[in-house]
């Protein structure tokens, strides 16, 4: 590496902008890539089999339906068990023994194809019990009029389809419960494909279910995702704003006057070690169900930290600025308004950004107390059903909201505090254009005043 060339690993040296951007993008692509790698490379991990075509077993209470996961070791046993049951049926059939009363069983067996029909788009969701349509599907698959792509039926299963259709069509080409065969039909053997555990769904699965959950009209009285999102935002913002409204003045007073510091800070310092969630039942008892205890929990979680952080920030203000103002004749109240407040504002703003991040962590607990609500209620419920592909989009939504709002606020920092010296040219120009009318007006007024100075001059 030449002495002028930039090294990737120079101790405490900034990389050139191009490389920084590359690494920033990579920092997001890398974890996504790892996720994709584990999800889409079939021989990596994949300890489960996701069932695409299931079969009910005789005298076994555990029922697997399409979409369920079974362990890779167990799946062949499952398939073999169904195969054995089929063999038993065949044996019975070959023995020529008269058989009856299998209509009900056969109707259930017909429906074995339902998940496959839905996956292939031949049957709308919710029509799992449309026996007439399924009956025709058996015919189409047997004659080869339709070929399933998801999943591709094994030779063994196709043979079973044809075999069954032979039995069924011999009696009736159309579905009718009465005309179902009296003899037991063969079961399709379970089919599935390697899959990772339910807690690691594939990325595309997460995107699809996420899109579905965010756009779908919710069932019953359940709130839509948009309503949940707004309710969560409302709780967090109200809790945070209350904490700010009370905490910032106290924090500044503590930072400026030793009197308030000694009066408030010791207790606050003690109180903040009591975890906010431990007050949850108390808050519900006092404030009853609804949003109030949730907002109060976020308040408790942020308020005490906020006071201490703000007082520390206030104390960090360059003392020589206060002295300079004093030698210019500023009285204590003027010091507070004209020096302390504007002086700490940029740092205070950054403190609040960090504390808003903390408030997000309290949100999850807040939404679980009393009547569960908001995004967390969804996460909690779906998590219990192990529907992690529905959980992740919501978690990502919370993450994105926090991240984007923080990035936005960081950018706004440069805009609001150009004098802090961190603003880029774009922000400065933006401010200049936004404030242009005001500045022009002020300049005009000044000119007018300068033209005709007051009589006292």
């Amino acid at each position, binding site marked *: 590496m030449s002495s002028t060339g930039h090294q990737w690993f120079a101790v405490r040296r900034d990389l050139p902008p191009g490389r920084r951007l590359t690494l920033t993008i990579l920092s997001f692509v890398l974890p996504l890539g790892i996720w994709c790698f584990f999800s889409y490379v079939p021989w990596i991990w994949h300890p489960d089999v996701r069932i695409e075509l299931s079969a009910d077993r005789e005298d076994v209470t555990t029922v697997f339906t399409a979409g369920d996961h079974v362990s890779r070791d167990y799946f062949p046993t499952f398939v073999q068990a169904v195969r054995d049951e089929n063999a038993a049926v065949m044996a019975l059939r070959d023995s020529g023994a008269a058989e009856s009363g299998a209509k009900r069983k056969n109707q259930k067996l017909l429906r074995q194809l339902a998940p496959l029909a839905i996956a292939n788009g031949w049957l709308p969701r919710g029509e799992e019990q449309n026996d007439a349509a399924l009956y025709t599907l058996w015919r189409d698959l047997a004659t080869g009029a339709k070929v399933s792509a998801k999943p591709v039926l094994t030779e063994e299963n196709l043979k079973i389809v044809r075999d069954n259709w032979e039995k069924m069509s011999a009696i009736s080409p159309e579905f009718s419960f009465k005309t179902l065969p009296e003899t037991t039909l063969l079961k399709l053997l379970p089919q599935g494909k390697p899959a990772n555990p339910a807690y690691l769904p594939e990325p595309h699965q997460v995107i699809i279910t996420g899109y579905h959950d965010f756009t779908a009209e919710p069932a019953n009285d359940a709130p839509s995702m948009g309503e949940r999102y707004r309710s969560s935002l409302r709780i967090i913002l109200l809790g945070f704003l209350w904490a700010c409204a009370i905490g910032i003045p106290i924090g500044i007073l503590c930072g400026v006057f030793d009197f308030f510091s000694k009066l408030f800070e010791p207790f606050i310092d003690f109180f903040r070690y009591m975890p906010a969630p431990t007050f949850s039942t108390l808050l519900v008892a006092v404030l009853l169900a609804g949003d109030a205890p949730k907002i109060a929990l976020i308040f408790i979680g942020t308020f005490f930290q906020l006071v201490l952080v703000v007082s520390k920030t206030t104390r960090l203000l*360059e003392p*020589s*600025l206060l*002295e*300079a*103002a*004093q*030698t*210019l*004749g*500023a009285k204590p109240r*003027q010091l507070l308004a*004209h*020096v302390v407040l*504007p*002086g700490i*504002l940029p740092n205070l703003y950054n403190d609040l950004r960090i504390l808003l991040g903390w408030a997000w962590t309290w949100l999850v607990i807040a939404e679980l107390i009393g009547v569960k609500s908001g995004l967390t209620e969804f996460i909690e419920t779906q998590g219990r059903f192990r529907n992690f592909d529905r959980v992740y989009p919501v978690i990502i939504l919370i993450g994105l909201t926090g991240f984007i709002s923080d990035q936005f606020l960081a950018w706004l920092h440069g805009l609001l*505090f*150009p*004098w*802090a*010296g961190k603003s880029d040219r774009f922000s400065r120009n933006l401010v200049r254009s936004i404030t242009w009318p005001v500045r022009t007006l002020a300049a005009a007024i000044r000119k007018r*005043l*300068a033209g005709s*100075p*007051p009589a006292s*001059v």
Partner: protein
Amino acid sequence: MSSPLLPDYRTQSPEVAARFERLRAREVALSVRGLTKNFETPRGIITALNDVSFEVHKRELLSVIGPSGCGKSTLVRILAGLETATSGEVRVYDQPVSGAGPDRGMVFQSYTLFPWLTVKQNVMFGPKIAGRSNYHAESEARQWIELVGLTKFENSYPHQLSGGMKQRVAIARALANQPRVLFMDEPFGALDAQTRCQMQSYLLEIWKNVDITIVFITHDLDEAVYLSDRILVLDANPGRVRELIEVPVPRPRSFQQFVEPEFISTRHHIDSLIHPTQSHVREEFPVLKFTKDDPDVV
């Protein structure tokens, strides 16, 4: 200590002597009497200033110099009202003062400009605090900014200025308040050598054009001699007045005077007051050799 080749620093030319005569006849702007400052520490009481008394006349430029730890910063902070003295009295134009006030301006070594205000707004700070109208404060501020030559930068923020420019703004801000005495606590100490020289000339120029009495704290001998009418030399541990020297260098001052005999003798004398043990220190250097003798390196 003084070299036989140099005149005594007390020798004054007739013009200089006459000037000091006139200066002494002026009104006393600042009088300090019996100023003592004790600090209480866990290891007992430390006396930072011990019975310091002196007077500064109207429109005089007095420097305070002394070895480190002589309490010159403590002294100026007490005078500006930022700290309280244990005992003693400070009078400005015969009025006893306590606490900070707009009658005593201060320029600090660290740039104490308010970073959230533009140059103009910084200069307007004092008058605005005093309740003057925006219009008056602004038109006055413009004049002070012009005085320190920063009209082009009146709408800049401090972080956009160089160190020397920041100190010029600080001076303008202090002067805009029209204090009766201006304290300057090593104002050019943080600047590079070139800027410092420039700023010293600037200060003399400003002082010439503004009716102001200046008390200037420094540790730089050349700076003290170049700027001052009189130099108050302090002793360390405890800080007390060693000598109050009348600088025999005629005004107007210029950098050419640095090599003139009265300049050198005054500088030499103060040096011997502040660093009396310097020759001892040199003798105590260990004599170790890490390389061969080189006739070109002595």
